[in-house]
């Protein structure tokens, strides 16, 4: 491992771990400010995946030969590493899924179809990514349950004063919120919502896809019942994520996907389910991707999640200051100390698509759109926003390049 733990990270040095930055785009240095969309991958992760394919690849859990054993042990080691990252009580409670979206769908279907019914309610917030909104809306409607949305303020904090009325009028069975907002960057204090959910007898489902890359996510400290993460946002490969769930809930649940590997025995009159985690991992898993995610956990822990969080706060503060210099800009979301490395903004009435395209030609990659948060866009009264997002390899001069690019955008539309 090339990196060592520092209280403060050296982004310039870490950047050399990421081969993708060894190129220019449109003849300009690449300012990759779209890490909240998906992060880039360090050499250590790419090498771990290559090495696995070159030396240890076979199918897992059912091949008796040496390669099968190596592959199984590599996959299970990755599971242990993800469990340790999340401070899970038991690695068997870590289910490999494609991404956080699939993890939340797993809970919505497997738990929701058997535990939600008419008169019950699912509560989400206005700030959810569609991944933690649409599955609940769909399953609630299928089950005849209510689907409720807490409104948020300009910092992205849900209005907790609505809870009393919700509790009075509904039987709340699920509370589902994000830990860090992908669109505003807000880092939430989940404690009040978690205890309220549990007072109602509800499960608490945490979408930590945007949190896990940036800060320590401790499932025990949060007190959640389910926590979902996506590997691709945290230096891991695409196509792999994880769902952690409380063992007793997972054991009581029906499976989500059915087929090979997830069974105990199959007879024409009856099939029984396998033990955790296998019950929820039908078919051949994304094995190498899981190994890559394990390597990403190694990388992030070596850099230090505290250092990453501190670095992002610094960049967020710098970006909010520099962006405020641009005439006509509207910045959304909380103050720097309450946000991860995400800044959403609009530049006058110039459409974010145009802003992003002109920035791209200056070598600056940002996301323009609704960020899978259409309810939030309705709240802000806009169709879309621009979003610049930062990670452990982001340098202040990339933010300078963004600001210069925005001046160029203004000239085009002057």
């Amino acid at each position, binding site marked *: 491992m090339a990196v060592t733990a520092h209280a403060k990270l050296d982004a310039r040095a870490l950047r050399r771990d990421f081969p993708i930055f060894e190129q220019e785009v*449109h003849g300009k240095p690449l300012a990759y400010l779209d890490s909240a969309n998906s992060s880039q991958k360090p050499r250590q992760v790419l090498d771990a995946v290559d090495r696995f394919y070159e030396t240890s690849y076979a199918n897992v859990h059912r091949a008796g030969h040496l390669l099968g054993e190596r592959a199984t042990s590599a996959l299970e080691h990755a599971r242990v590493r993800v469990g340790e990252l999340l401070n899970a009580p038991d690695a068997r409670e870590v289910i490999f899924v494609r991404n956080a979206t699939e993890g939340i769908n797993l809970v919505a279907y497997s738990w929701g179809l058997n535990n939600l019914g008419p008169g019950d309610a699912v509560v989400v917030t206005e700030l959810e990514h569609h991944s933690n909104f649409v599955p609940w809306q769909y399953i609630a409607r299928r089950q005849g349950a209510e689907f409720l949305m807490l409104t948020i303020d300009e910092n992205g904090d849900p209005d907790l004063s609505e809870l009393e009325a919700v509790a009075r009028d509904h039987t709340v069975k699920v509370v589902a919120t994000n830990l860090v907002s992908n669109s505003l960057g807000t880092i939430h204090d989940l404690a009040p919502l978690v205890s309220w959910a549990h007072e109602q007898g509800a499960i608490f489902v945490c979408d930590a896809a945007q949190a896990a890359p940036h800060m320590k996510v401790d499932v025990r400290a949060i007190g959640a019942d389910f926590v979902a993460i996506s590997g691709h946002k945290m230096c891991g490969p695409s196509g792999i994520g994880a769902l952690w769930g409380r063992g007793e809930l997972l054991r009581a649940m029906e499976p989500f996907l059915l087929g090979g590997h997830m069974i105990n025995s199959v007879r024409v009159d009856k099939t029984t389910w396998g033990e955790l985690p296998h019950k929820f991992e039908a078919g051949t898993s994304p094995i190498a991707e899981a190994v890559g995610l394990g390597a990403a956990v190694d990388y992030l822990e070596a850099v230090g999640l505290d250092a990453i969080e501190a670095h992002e706060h610094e960049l967020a503060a710098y970006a909010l200051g520099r962006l405020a210099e641009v005439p006509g800009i509207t910045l959304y979301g909380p103050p720097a100390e309450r946000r991860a490395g995400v800044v959403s903004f609009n530049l006058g009435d*110039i*459409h*974010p*698509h*145009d802003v992003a*395209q*002109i920035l791209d*030609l*200056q070598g600056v990659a940002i996301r*323009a*759109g*609704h960020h899978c948060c*259409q309810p939030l*866009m309705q709240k802000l009264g806009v*169709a*879309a926003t621009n979003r610049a997002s930062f990670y452990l390899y982001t340098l202040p001069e990339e933010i300078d390049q963004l600001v210069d690019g925005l001046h*160029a955008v203004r*000239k*085009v*539309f002057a």
Partner: protein
Amino acid sequence: MSDPALESLYREVILDHYKNPRGHGVIEDADAEAEGQNPLCGDEVSVYVAFGEDGETIDDVKFSGRGCAISQAATSMLMEMTRGRTAQQVAELDKEELLAEIGVPLTPVRLKCAMLGLTTLKVALHKAKGTPLPEGLAGFDDLELT
């Protein structure tokens, strides 16, 4: 603008159509209308058509909505291109004809922006006149989930 790529994409005629859109507005009691959205970016366009006395020729066509320069400029150009044509002619209008009018190379993402107005207009004509839907949109009406 010194960057040639920038200059080419946001050439004067695009910015002119964006800033001074032709046929912008609403036709009350339109003979045909439809709303279109680009789910990727949230662009929205509504188009309104009034037919002439033959019930086939487009006498007036307007659009409202909001979106990026490419989607709004392309729709504005479309309004000028389609007035005076019949519903059937517009249903058969090749997207290349509109792209030629736009006159700049578009990335796949921006192509969707550019086609929003044309797709929406074809949907409006389909609803009013039963003309063919654009490619890939057959069964579009069945997809409404709500």
